């Protein structure tokens, strides 16, 4: 992402000598660039000599817009950054603000948050698997994955009223408690889903064609992966044990028993296996969270931070004033800055929030894992073919909404 990328009119370096290289513009409207990524490929035949990713086509100015909104309102924006694992985005921001405020949420809130984040990880990995397989021509897997994702979206809708942009996690707690039909629905999903993963694996894992397309493609060594700042499944597939849920637990993850799948080669196939296993591990966490879900309040009882219960508004003047003040003036964290990292579906999502004591964040910034994983793209695509490029982009599992912000 150097300045050369911004001026696509200039020829890429190395093309000035009389060679047979061809420059191919891949994207932003290309079926396999997952949104609006643009790649400038320099090709020798179909072999890739050079790759220059060009981003910014989905720039939304979300971070800047957030400075004009109150803390509670910013949550709706975070949903729209990494829109495939948006509850992790919510969690990161909410945890950061709670850290600023110096409050601790009830146990039940932590467990519900973790449960939803793991469902979200599964749903995000399902989108990845579907689109990745579609990119490589196995189109049925795509529709199977979306069938299961639909069930997760239904669960989210049942709980928060919205299928994708839930805004369910709030500062100091949640939007509402779990509905009574939540548990049976999730249990149903828990019973069904392992067979579905088996089904995907049956179609792909030992499939000769699939292995040929993914094995030893897009190799990223351990050292390179660390040097480029990769996180999440991309880093773990290269064999690095790095999972914040284990190394740096937050939101009650220390209560759960799960494994962190690691790869050995760091090729596209390893990233595939890692994510498939992660889905199974996430399922374990969902099951444990459901079994051991503690009772208790679903938000803290601080009227300066969370609104009073609705039924008090008609009888208590004090509650009415709190309600009015909270929604007109917002909450005011003390001045300071915090950094909170959560393990998203794509890697470490870091949230940096600066408060100047007002009701709106002075600045907030997200460390988007996709951005760093994308930067490793040229390192991964050495001597690859155009067909491999598609596999490699798919295996990094980028979300452009998160990269461009």
């Amino acid at each position: 992402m150097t300045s050369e990328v911004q001026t696509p009119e200039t020829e890429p370096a190395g093309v000035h000598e009389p060679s047979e290289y061809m420059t191919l513009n891949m994207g932003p409207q290309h079926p396999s660039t997952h949104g609006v990524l643009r790649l400038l490929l320099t090709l020798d035949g179909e072999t890739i000599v050079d790759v220059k990713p060009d981003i910014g086509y989905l720039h939304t100015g979300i971070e800047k817009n957030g400075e004009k909104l109150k803390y509670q309102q910013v949550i709706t924006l975070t949903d729209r950054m990494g829109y495939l694992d948006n509850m992790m985005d919510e969690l990161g921001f909410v945890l950061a603000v709670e850290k600023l405020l110096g409050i601790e949420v009830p146990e039940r809130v932590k467990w519900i948050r973790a449960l939803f984040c793991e469902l979200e990880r599964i749903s995000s990995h399902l989108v990845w698997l579907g689109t990745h397989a579609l990119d490589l021509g196995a189109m049925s897997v795509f529709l199977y994955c979306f069938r299961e994702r639909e069930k997760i979206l239904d669960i989210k809708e049942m709980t928060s009223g919205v299928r994708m942009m839930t805004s369910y996690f709030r500062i100091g707690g949640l939007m509402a408690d779990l509905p009574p039909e939540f548990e049976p629905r999730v249990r149903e999903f828990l019973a069904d889903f392992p067979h579905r993963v088996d089904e995907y694996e049956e179609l792909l894992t030992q499939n000769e064609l699939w292995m040929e397309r993914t094995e030893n493609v897009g190799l990223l060594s351990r050292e390179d992966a660390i040097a480029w700042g990769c996180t999440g499944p991309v880093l773990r597939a290269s064999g690095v044990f790095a999972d914040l849920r284990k190394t740096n637990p937050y939101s009650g993850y220390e209560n759960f028993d799960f494994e962190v799948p690691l790869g050995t080669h760091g090729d596209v196939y390893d990233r595939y296996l890692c994510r498939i296993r992660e889905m199974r591990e996430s399922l374990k966490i969902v099951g444990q969270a459901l079994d051991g879900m503690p009772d208790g309040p679903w938000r803290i009882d601080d009227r300066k931070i969370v609104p009073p219960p609705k039924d008090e508004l008609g009888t208590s003047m004090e509650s009415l004033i709190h309600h009015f003040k909270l929604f007109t003036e917002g909450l005011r964290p003390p001045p300071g800055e915090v950094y909170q990292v959560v393990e998203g579906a794509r890697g470490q999502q870091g949230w940096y929030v600066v408060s100047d004591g007002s009701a709106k964040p002075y600045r907030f910034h997200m460390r988007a894992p996709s951005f760093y994983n994308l930067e490793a793209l040229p390192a991964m695509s050495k001597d690859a073919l155009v067909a491999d490029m598609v596999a490699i982009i798919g295996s990094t599992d980028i979300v452009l909404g998160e990269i461009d912000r």
Partner: protein
Amino acid sequence: MSPVVEAFVEGVIKAAIALGFLLNSFAIMTIMERKVVGRMQQRYGPNRVGPFGLLQPLADGVKLLMKEQIIPARVNVPIYIVAPTISVMVSLMAFAVIPVAPAFTAGPYRVGWWISNPNIGILYLFAVASLGVYGIVLGSWSSGNKYSLLGGLRSTAQIISYELAFGLSIVSAILLAGSLNLPEVVKVQSHLPWFILIQPLGFAIFAIGGIAETNRAPFDLPEAEQELIAGYHTEYSGFRFALYFMAEYINMVTISALATTLFLGGWLPINFGWFPGWLQWLDNFLLWVPGVLWFLAKVSFFLFAYMWLRATLPRIRYDRLMWFGWKVLLPLAVLNVLITALYVSLQ
């Protein structure tokens, strides 16, 4: 009427029937493919136009005809216009020698269920089918688009890597039949077992080559949607695009028909001859079903297999296809021909 005129009239009538059959099968296949693949993917496929969505091909055809045919600025216009017609013409021509059912007698005339019956039918078919790549290469080159160009290059690479093995797999069938005449090949299979049983390897090579020949998944490299957008027909729109589409589907019918003729006994019924007495009625029924229906049933089986493969398999990479064609299929095909030749000469 003089025999020349008679032959001419007969040819025209049969060609008209074959054309109608092929164009209709194209229409039916587009809807069948979407329905079959849809069902395999837990969805319905088109079901809004007409009963069960059966009029969908008509709607698609009308839409494509009415659409503006965009000619981009940088194309080589004459070649750009001619290329899709080459593809579709060649695919239609290939069907001329396919024997659908045995010849029958109608009054003073002996009529065959084929348009033409040259003694070198297989050679003709093979030659014509190989011409099909010209439509793709010319279309991709004249489009002036880099993605199209890559698609064209891939299709050339593809044709040289599978065509040899494909041809050799046919040779093994010809050796067994002792004739290049397609109706003869079928007739031989009425006293020998069907060639798929004696030539399983030859059939496997033929089937793989046939999928590559028709550019279908998992060998749909020249039009790999996710890599090359649409490959050679990226810049085509409206009815010219429909022509490419039509050529692909008619080629599928032709290859399936050829596979039926060479390896599955063409119009011959399934008749193992070892049915026990109480199953005699089934035997009689199978013999009673007309040859045309047997032929159509076998062709449909292959067409279904095409759709099944498309719904299941990922796409192969083109360097792997070449590797597979040269290093696996070709040696196997040569070996197969050698063994078959040895067997035939020893008899």
